[in-house]
């Protein structure tokens, strides 16, 4: 039962503990921005060198599935934000329901991604596995798909981690670990979830929408 926050011994009070957690998670999220950022840098530089190849390659991605997935992920951010809100208000059942919805949407995202990967595989677009492209700039089209699988792959790993994290939060909430006085783990999990969403927000146009006109 946590009707009041348990303050760790290094902190003076619950408020200091909370602000420390807030700052800590934001710095961690900044490191994630730079972690993915290296891939965005590789993408940007390669695209500037080979604009036509990236245009061709992007048109080979599945924009329908990619767009649906973006909608799924944005919705999961809504449900997660509502979950954090419900936890803050002490609405335990609502928070569990919203977190479960978040997990479900996250799993849906991964399932759709899996379908996309499968379609890419049958379309011979997987570098090192079965990549073959008969059109122009085939080598650079392959580099695009290398980056596509790398970036969405690392993103999916983060999604899996996020789903596990929210799953743990659901378990803890079921055991009444949270209250209006103490909901920090849920809030931090929410922040992580939103950041993984933000990464996808940038991935989506760069991978799917390069030269659709």
């Amino acid at each position, binding site marked *: 039962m946590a009707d009041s926050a348990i303050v760790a011994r290094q902190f003076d009070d619950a408020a200091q503990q909370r602000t420390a957690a807030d700052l800590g998670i934001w710095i961690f999220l*900044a490191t994630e921005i730079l972690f993915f950022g*290296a891939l965005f840098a590789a993408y940007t530089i390669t695209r500037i060198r080979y604009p036509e190849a990236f245009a061709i390659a992007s048109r080979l991605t599945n924009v329908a599935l990619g767009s649906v997935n973006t909608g799924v992920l*944005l919705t999961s951010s809504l449900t997660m934000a*509502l979950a954090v809100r419900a936890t803050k208000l002490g609405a335990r059942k609502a928070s569990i329901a919203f977190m479960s919805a978040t997990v479900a949407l996250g799993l849906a995202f991964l399932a759709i991604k899996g379908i996309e990967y499968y379609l890419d595989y049958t379309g011979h677009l997987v570098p090192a596995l079965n990549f073959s492209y008969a059109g122009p700039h085939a080598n650079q089209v392959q580099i695009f798909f290398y980056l596509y699988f790398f970036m969405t792959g690392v993103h999916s790993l983060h999604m899996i981690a996020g789903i596990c994290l929210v799953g743990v939060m659901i378990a803890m909430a079921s055991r009444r670990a949270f209250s209006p006085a103490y909901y920090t783990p849920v809030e931090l999990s*929410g922040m992580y979830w*939103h950041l993984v*969403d933000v990464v996808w*927000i940038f991935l989506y146009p760069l991978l799917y929408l390069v030269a659709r006109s």
Partner: protein
Amino acid sequence: MISHPVAPARTYVLVWLGLVTLLLLTLGSAYLPLGWLNGVVNLAIAAAKALLVMIFFMHLRSSHYVLRLAAAAGFFWLAILIGLSLSDFLAR
């Protein structure tokens, strides 16, 4: 000290509606022949979406300025990485 005021659920739903609208906008505009502007528009819309998520879902709106600084620093440093590297690739 930092205890974000609890926003009404309505706010979150409105933000979500904004995000979905921007998604439809970016998808739709991608099919308009705008040349190099397509990329700019898409990135601008992505930035707008990201800001909505960070300001409302991630509570940067009511956060201490140091948190906003940390968030900004992440993006700013990424801009340094990409920008200064481009100074090489664009000027060869």
